[in-house]
């Protein structure tokens, strides 16, 4: 098959294409298990294979995909034909930033392949967790396990040949209960990536037992709690909500395709402009953010992106100043040409596709915030006069240019003069992105830093779901409106 794919790439290039690549997925497997109130509602497995072909012709992309490997010529021809039509409406002829051709492979680190674990053992884990969560106050209990395994072979007309073998494990626990007014509240647990690997061994029974007991306890506190007040306070975001704040208002805002207007008709744009790089004060001096695809244990680390560019660790925001973006080969060329100066030194290696039948687009890797110097969570609480500690992502809604946001959290703890005084329910906060990050007044140290994963980031048309990570410390922001 390797030789056939390479021959097809050569053929379309000799038919006039300036570049072509192919991603062949010999196999992609997933396994989803959901136990809901003791019922194994979903026990499913899936398998798919196929190829996606991308052809650049006269400054325009054509893409085609098929699960049928018996007609490679037809598949490559269709991609070239799609490019020919696209070439009739070109405004900036696409060109690709330089890269080195590589012959390489990447395997995600894991000790135990979850697909080798018998179903009985997986269902046993769900059952045990379900029983653990079956406590007074809990009306709904949801235990999920998702496993993914994929093999991707990448070839391009510049001579790159890359094989990737990636395994992911996504477990979660959730409980829900009703308060005296008949309103539902929930508490969830998705483990942070603690070790160096990402296989079945990350499902640590002791940890899940402890955290399961915690979310039941906290849910019961929320059920009896007063509503969150509507006022301005300092908000102390634990990694369980700060990861999503970072995702939505740093990550998505710094995708270069959004900045250049390529998502304006759907997902939206960004308040960031090309002139902002190196100048914009995005946040206070305490804010340093980076896109680090070299973290070992995260779904945001994949070795090489779908342009064949190696994983990198790049600064996005340096002590509050915007310095970088999430980029692929195409967009950096257009950005530099539009700005008439080299803002970006090549691709940052963040162009990824969710499946063989989708085209790669700029996606977050691990969008992390560096730990700060403001001590532990306890230290930050002690130094807060009037605040609220927030955790758990209940709902999120963000302006189309990522300029403003509204988040609802699962739980809030009011802080008065350095002490936690009470739990509140229906906690929410909102703000304007730049004003918010400039009000960042404390960043927790290494002890507060956790690597969270996102397994369902949606973007693009046709829609793509991507897996990625966020390494996040506890952060405090001042004068934030809560309770709306």
């Amino acid at each position, binding site marked *: 098959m390797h030789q056939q794919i390479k021959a097809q790439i050569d053929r379309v290039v000799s038919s006039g294409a300036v570049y072509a690549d192919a991603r062949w997925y010999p196999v992609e497997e997933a396994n989803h298990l959901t*136990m809901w109130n*003791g*019922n*194994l*509602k979903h*026990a*499913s*497995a*899936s*398998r798919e*294979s*196929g190829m996606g072909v991308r052809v650049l012709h006269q400054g*325009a992309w*054509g*893409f*085609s*995909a098929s*699960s*049928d490997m*018996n007609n490679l010529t037809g598949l490559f021809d*269709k991609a070239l034909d*799609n490019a020919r*039509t*696209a070439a*009739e*409406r*070109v405004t900036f002829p696409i060109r690709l930033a330089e890269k080195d051709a590589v012959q390489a492979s990447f395997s995600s680190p894991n000790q135990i392949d979850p697909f080798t674990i*018998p*179903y009985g053992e997986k*269902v046993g884990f769900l059952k045990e967790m379900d029983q653990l969560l079956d406590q007074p106050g809990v*009306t*709904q209990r949801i235990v999920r396990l998702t496993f993914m395994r994929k093999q991707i072979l990448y070839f391009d007309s510049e001579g790159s040949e890359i094989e990737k073998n990636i395994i992911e494990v996504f477990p979660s626990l959730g409980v*829900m209960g*009703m308060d005296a007014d*008949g*309103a*539902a509240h929930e508490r969830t647990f998705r483990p942070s990536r603690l070790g160096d690997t990402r296989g079945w061994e990350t499902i640590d029974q002791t940890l899940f037992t402890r955290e399961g007991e915690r979310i039941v306890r906290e849910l019961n506190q929320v059920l009896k709690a007063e509503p969150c007040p509507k006022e301005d306070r300092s908000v102390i975001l634990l990694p369980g909500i700060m990861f999503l704040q970072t995702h939505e208002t740093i990550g998505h805002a710094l995708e270069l395709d959004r900045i250049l*207007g*390529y*998502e*304006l*008709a*759907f997902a*939206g744009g960004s308040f960031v402009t090309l002139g902002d790089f190196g100048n914009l004060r995005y946040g206070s001096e305490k804010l340093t953010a980076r896109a680090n695809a070299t973290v070992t244990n995260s779904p945001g680390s994949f070795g090489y992106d779908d342009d064949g560019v190696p994983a990198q660790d790049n600064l996005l925001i340096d002590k509050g100043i915007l310095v970088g973006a999430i980029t692929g080969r195409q967009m950096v060329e257009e950005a530099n040409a539009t700005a008439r100066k080299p803002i970006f030194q090549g691709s940052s290696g963040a162009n990824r596709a969710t499946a063989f*039948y989708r085209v790669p687009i700029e996606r977050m890797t691990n969008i992390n915030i560096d730990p700060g110097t403001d001590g532990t969570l306890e230290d930050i609480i002690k130094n807060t006069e009037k605040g609220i500690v927030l955790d758990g992502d209940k*709902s999120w*809604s*963000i*302006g*189309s*240019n990522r*300029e*403003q946001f*509204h988040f*609802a959290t699962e739980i809030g703890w009011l802080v008065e003069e350095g002490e936690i005084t009470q739990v509140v329910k229906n906690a*929410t906060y909102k703000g304007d992105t730049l004003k918010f990050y400039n009000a960042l007044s404390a960043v927790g140290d290494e002890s507060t830093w956790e690597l969270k994963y996102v397994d369902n980031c949606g973007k693009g*048309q*046709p*829609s793509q779901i991507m897996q990625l990570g966020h390494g996040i410390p506890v952060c405090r922001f001042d004068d934030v409106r809560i309770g*709306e």
Partner: protein
Amino acid sequence: MNEKMLTTLQELRKFALNKGITAEFFFHEEDSALMRFANSAISLNTNEHLLRLEITAYEDQKRASFSMITNLDAVEDMKQGVLQAAEIVKHAQPLSYQPTIPVYQETIIEDFAFDPDLAGISNSEKLDYFNQAVDGLESDQIKLGGIYSSGKNVIAMMNTQSEHAQAFTTSDAQITMVLSHKTLKWEVIDEQSAQKKADLDPAPLHRQLSYLLGHYQNDPAEQVPLGEYDIVFGPAATAELVNTMNWIGFNGGMMKRGYSFLTEEHLGQQVLGETFTLVDDPSRRETFPFSRDMMGVRREPFTLFDKGVFRAFTWNQDDADEYGAQPTGHDVMHKSLVVGAGDEPINTLEELVNAPREKDVLYIPFIHYMNFVNPSKGLITGSSRFGALLLKQDGSVVVPYNVRLTQSLLDIFGEKVAWMSDGQVAYNTSSSYGARNPTALVVPNFVYVKDLAISHANSSY
């Protein structure tokens, strides 16, 4: 309908029966094409032909499934899939209830909603359509974006309980056109939904986009002061708001699990305003309906709200089995939600803008990034986008910077509704989120709601 798909179903059924496996087989075939525009260029021109097979195996009260992307020549592979599903079900844990497997009484093969001319529309025809719809409207600053999504969709199902099959073939197109200002970053939008090629017409899009551009390029823009406004929702906003009730409203299973703002006590009660009637009406062709649900139940019009009185929850089979309810024919990939028309003869944006008004009115065509803040209270939040207008009391028009609404559906569709248009439109809410599933709601052109608070107002575009 592809004969080979039906014979493959028969073959899989025979194979399962021979192995003593109780199973359902569900094919989903899509031939999808998408031309995507951005910055006035075709940023992506893609197509995909995918055949998915989902096999669900049953053993007493146990259930498990295996799905694969495959092709019709790979029958041996599919049979391996059947064995896989049967293997997983052995290790599954029994449900607390007996899941129902449908027994199809007759074979249903339906393709009245399929138009080969639309499904096979060529690249150049799509490009021509876009070029006509924005003829003369683009410039150095005004850039075209959007999608032309079209394709063919086949679903076919059979199980070991009977020899009958159900198969439905549809074609569809969803067109979204956006004109955006390169540096100011505002956007205006218009959309079209089609089931047949004859439904396509670029002229109305051109008219609407020209009209909106006129306002966005010539009228003053401002930050909207916080406070209460009369708000007129356009079709996209109304469709999105009504669609949320699928999740946190009238879905029986979600209600039982506590995710709904409706409870059994609300049945027969005046929950929403008297102007609000909502029917799941599969006789409306524009909603891409099938005549049967996946349990083989004939789809009939089903009233959800009658003049604001809540009439019924929808129940799919699995939730009905679990909670001891009667299924209502709602094992469907999408419902056919139709909001009843009102009696106000205002149906175009121009008519709305020119209508006399007693106070400032905010027109919100589109709600971006809506989410549920508190499902039990029907509380949602989202921002305006794509061509909102502030219609001033004095007759002038201002372009408002985007605003955020954090409101309960009980208020939005409650007593505060002043009027709805007497004309309706099909609004396409399809998303190619894994498998093509053309979906549209029929809604009044405008819904006018009094005194809704704006919770946040942007200070620039």
